[in-house]
């Protein structure tokens, strides 16, 4: 009962957020632009543009287009690719395995490295380890990932020949893109783990656990880490949500056959319909991942369920 009461508003909220996001995507992309003109290029005649508009349903007034757009979404129809003449959904689903594989591995690397880095920094606050890890985290947030990918290719593929520079297939192909992609979430996780753990360590219940004579390791493991975990889990969810679609440039650099590369190909061919479909899938997956994390909280930590929204 109480779980349903906890879940219902979250589901509703997620649905509303998604609806607004998809409407925003529609209006931002269409309100003042002329996709037909852009698809055909500047040398197209007026007749050609008009024909294209009719073909895409762009000749109708904007509100009518919007209703059609919502209607399509409602029936889970993502439209047809202009370039490939196949349903967008098919094209996107075909890229899912690669994208998910890359995201999962990158998140694993980010967590395995970022979490200990942050915890270490919090425990050794103010000392050299702390400074190093904070600086590394800041560095990770400042570096353009696609450029880092290029540098990795330069070193590991071109100069030393240890790993392949692009494409996919074996685990060796996965290493460079996954490591590159893991840098930003790693930095975020490390920063957040550090701040949330050092905050918890100053709480009174930690002091009293220490006063009871518990060993420092016991205090940290049984009390502090558990309480510091929540915000870290949140940021992991958020990062995973953005990774799936945020990998565009990194996928492009490594010619990784995921959603991001599909998007850049769609751009090259001005495949407006496919781009829009990918945006929709990206927004849906972001909202779904975060909803899942939110619901997981409710299961893991009953206190949050009590507090309600």
């Amino acid at each position, binding site marked *: 009962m109480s779980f349903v009461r906890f879940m219902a508003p979250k589901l509703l909220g997620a649905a509303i957020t998604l609806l607004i996001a998809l409407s925003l995507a529609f209006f931002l992309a*269409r309100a003042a632009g002329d996709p037909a003109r*852009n698809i055909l290029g500047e040398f197209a005649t007026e007749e050609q543009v008009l024909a294209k508009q009719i073909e895409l349903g762009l000749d109708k007034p904007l509100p009518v287009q919007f209703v059609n757009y919502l209607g399509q979404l409602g029936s889970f129809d993502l439209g047809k690719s202009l370039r490939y003449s196949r349903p967008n959904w098919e094209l996107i689903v075909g890229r899912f395995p690669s994208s998910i594989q890359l995201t999962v591995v990158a998140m694993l690397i980010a967590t395995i490295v970022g979490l200990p880095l942050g915890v270490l920094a919090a425990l050794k606050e103010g000392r050299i380890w702390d400074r190093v890890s904070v600086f590394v985290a800041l560095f990770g947030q400042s570096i353009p990932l696609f450029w880092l990918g290029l540098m990795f290719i330069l070193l590991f593929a071109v100069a030393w020949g240890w790993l392949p520079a692009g494409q996919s297939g074996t685990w060796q192909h996965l290493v460079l893109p996954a490591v590159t992609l893991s840098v930003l979430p790693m930095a975020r996780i490390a920063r957040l783990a550090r701040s949330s753990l050092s905050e918890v360590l100053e709480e009174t219940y930690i002091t009293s656990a220490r006063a009871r004579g518990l060993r420092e390791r016991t205090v940290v493991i049984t009390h502090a880490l558990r309480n510091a975990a929540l915000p870290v889990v*949140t940021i992991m969810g958020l990062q995973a949500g953005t990774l799936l679609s*945020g990998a565009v440039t990194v996928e492009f650099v490594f010619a990784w056959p995921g959603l991001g590369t599909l998007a850049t190909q769609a751009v090259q061919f001005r495949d407006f319909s496919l781009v829009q479909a990918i945006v929709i899938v990206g927004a849906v997956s972001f909202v779904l991942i975060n909803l899942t994390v939110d619901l997981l909280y409710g299961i893991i930590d009953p206190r949050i369920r009590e507090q309600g929204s």
Partner: protein
Amino acid sequence: MLGRMLTGAVSADRTTKGFAARNSSLWVMGLPLVLLGLIVLAAPLLPLADPGLQDLRGRLIPPIFLEGGTWEHPLGTDQLGRDLLARIIYGGRLTFVIAIAAVLVGSVFGTLLGMIAGYRRGWVDTVIARIVDAQLALPFILLAIAIIVSRGRSLAVLVAVLAIISWAQYARVIRAEALSLRERPFILGLRAAGASSMRIILRHIFPNVGGTVLVLATLEVGTMILAESALSFLGLGVVSPDISWGGMLAGGREFIQDAWWVVAFPGIAITFVVLSINLLGDALRARYDPRKRTYL
């Protein structure tokens, strides 16, 4: 749903003890940026090669410290024989202009909407907060791609896209600050004295969130530089003959096997600038947010 998660994320981010804050003063953090800004501004006065001048016989000349490098091109030349040093300095101009323009537009809209939402509450707040959540749920680079594909490519569109990406950030943070400010006694007192909402928002809420806006805007210049470089790298932002760091990376990518310097230097420039901005932002945060200084 996202609201709570996002607020959680930001509050944690703010409580991160600033590396910069503890180690150096604002000036030390700002100095590299000021110097760089001056160099970039004074570019036409410096003895630099014409950044657009092609020399097909002098293609991919290595930088001075490698064999074959010449003082004529200290950082070497690119695939069309153009001087890399000049291109990086001139490219910095456009990169900065775009990032700062986007930050200005985004921060004005975001701050205003955030203050209105937080102060007025009610349905206005509900609507704005929902749009912020929705905006943050849209994958930024895909959204940018969608807009640019349907609108065509231009500097104005690029700035607009970047501003659209960033406004929600300000709105979210400033809304939270305005929400807590509106319950403060001095705001209640002003309402009791008959001050209008407009006056309270502009004269009292704004000065009190100004420091936060400044910190956010500083950090956001870095984010915008990264976003611009990503879009230009994909061929969606700045394109030839205009020069930006991201655009340089896009052009040099194919030649990475033979001439690493063509992609290495623009990337180093981006990383250096964004890192400096992030360090400065950390220092500013400690300075302008005295209430939270103990946590920083």
